[in-house]
């Protein structure tokens, strides 16, 4: 297991490098001159030139690339052009909100998705299965902001159970009330995905020979489903959850906008609209690192569940 973990961690490094390169290229592909974008098109040539020098834009591309890599690896992700704070500071401020939202969504998804998917697989082709499939397909069909808006309308505006906008608060109950609808929104989407993959994975596992062997041993009921079937069905579920993490991040951006909640998503949107390229680049690096972290964690979880994986 240790060898496997180390291998996985080492694999993350070239992946990170590849992503950083893509980010570097993408940031440079933006049309227009960043210097003009910052100073405006009334600025003088000297000030533009000075700014370019300051930003390192006048150096040859490969030098910029090396400098970029060096900065990233030493933790210098740049400085926001609009706020003046470093990217890391900006991220640090909103990270707790994003993390708690993501964790809540994942928790809801697993808590509801696993049982629902299992139930659908056990009652295959009966009405719970069809209903479950239709419901989860519907859940997947909502664009993240549509479901958020509908939830907002239903629970905040009409029923007035929960607040319409998030406000900064130190009261834990209020904090949870602020978290509820956004987490529910993402949680519903996560549940839909997890239900689907659990169902199909369980169905294929239930047809395996070792399930038949277990039944022939006298294993039945809960033990058969949980220890023999679900434990093996979890393997693709973990993989898929890792894959869908990206979608979760995308939808969390929309969720944060609809519920006016601080988070990484709003940060990136702000960077885009105000053309804050430095912040944008830094944020992209953060996201890339995040994604790689999730992939690595998924692989590690995989190794915990499936003993075959750790023996190469």
């Amino acid at each position, binding site marked *: 297991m240790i060898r496997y973990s180390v291998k996985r961690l080492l694999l993350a490094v070239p992946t990170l490098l590849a992503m950083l390169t893509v980010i570097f290229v993408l940031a440079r592909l933006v049309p227009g001159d960043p210097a003009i974008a910052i100073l405006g098109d009334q600025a003088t040539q000297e000030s533009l030139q000075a700014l370019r020098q300051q930003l390192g834009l006048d150096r040859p591309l490969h030098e910029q690339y090396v400098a970029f890599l060096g900065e990233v690896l030493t933790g210098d992700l740049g400085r926001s052009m609009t706020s003046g704070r470093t990217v890391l500071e900006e991220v640090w401020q909103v990270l707790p909100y994003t993390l708690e939202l993501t964790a809540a969504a994942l928790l809801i998804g697993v808590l509801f998705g696993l049982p629902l998917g299992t139930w659908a697989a056990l009652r*295959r082709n009966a009405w719970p299965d069809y209903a479950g499939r239709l419901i989860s397909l519907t859940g997947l069909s909502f664009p993240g902001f549509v479901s958020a808006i509908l939830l907002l309308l239903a629970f905040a505006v009409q029923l007035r159970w929960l607040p319409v906008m998030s406000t900064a608060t130190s009261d834990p109950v209020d904090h949870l009330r602020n978290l509820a609808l956004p987490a529910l929104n993402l949680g519903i989407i996560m549940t839909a995905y997890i239900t689907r993959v659990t169902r199909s994975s369980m169905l294929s596992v239930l047809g*395996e*020979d*070792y399930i*038949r*062997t*277990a*039944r*022939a*041993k*006298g*294993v*039945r009921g809960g033990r058969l489903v949980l*220890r*023999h079937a679900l*434990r*093996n069905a979890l393997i693709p579920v973990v993989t898929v959850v890792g894959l869908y993490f990206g979608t979760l991040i995308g939808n969390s951006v929309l969720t944060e906008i609809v519920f006016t909640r601080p988070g990484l998503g709003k940060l990136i949107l702000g960077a885009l609209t105000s053309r804050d390229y430095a912040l944008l680049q830094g944020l992209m690096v953060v996201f890339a690192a995040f994604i790689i972290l999730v992939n690595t964690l998924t692989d590690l979880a995989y190794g915990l*569940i*499936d*003993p*075959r994986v750790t*023996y190469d």
Partner: protein
Amino acid sequence: MNEPVLRVECLQSEFRIGGQWYPAVRDFSLAVEANETVAVVGESGSGKSVTALSILGLLPAVGARIARGSVVFGGRDLVGLPEAELATLRGDAIAMIFQEPMTSLNPTMTVGDQIAEVIRIHRGTSRKTALSEALHLLEEVRIPAARLRLHDYPHQFSGGMRQRVMIAMALACRPKLLLADEPTTALDVTIQAQVLALLNELKQSYGMSILFITHNLGVVAQMADRVAVMYAGEIVECAPVAELFAAPLHPYTEALLQAMPRVDRDSAALHPIGGQVPPLTAMPPGCAFAPRCPLRQPQCERHPPLVPLRLGSGHSLRCFVRAAMESAA
């Protein structure tokens, strides 16, 4: 005369194909005595595996059913028994081992835990006790370095080893009856011989009966006391093993023996059986083997019953033609 360990009477198992039910096993009647090995032989698709699954109630819940017949074990008819009661029998009084050792073990459970599981379910012992018993069993099936391998996972074992693990699992609660569905078919020939020898040995020391399913007549010769030959879902001949090999009566049995390559015969003398097994959905109304039978006669349009040749001989036959010839002799 002791009660047989297992008595199957007129078992019929059916599958639903395209909305209609078709029998895969028909009119199956067989008794297995204590400490006896009965082999069930036949080609693929003859219904042998379905029979074994039916005995334990392991047919798929959807699309398969036991239409009629009885399976009497320990004084009870297993057909129609509620699932909970069947589950107490499975792995305890009746155990089953399967053909594919590579896929028949749970990949995410250690071998020790899988064996211990049977013991814990049926004997209620603690994990520690069950594991030490599992270790003992692994040693009995001759897994080398058993103590170390107790905590290994199935993928760390070879095919032959896995099959031994399956045997250990099956024998953990000292069953009275073992159903063995082609346990050595997927193994190398040399390993096959070892596993068969092991089964024989354990059968003696545990005092159990085996219902051995195979398509390999060589294995039958090595293992069985009695043989039932199946064709197209029915038993066509049933006899003590020596008698069957020396003087097979049913044309199908004869053909099977002829088709088998033997060391003492020239391979040019191989006679494959012409024709094919009729599909489930298109079973002829009369004798199922008639279309391929060299002895076919007009009376074979009717369906022949399985009848004992002579009272008390233990040799039964499903063939009008040969039965007539025998009684004339």
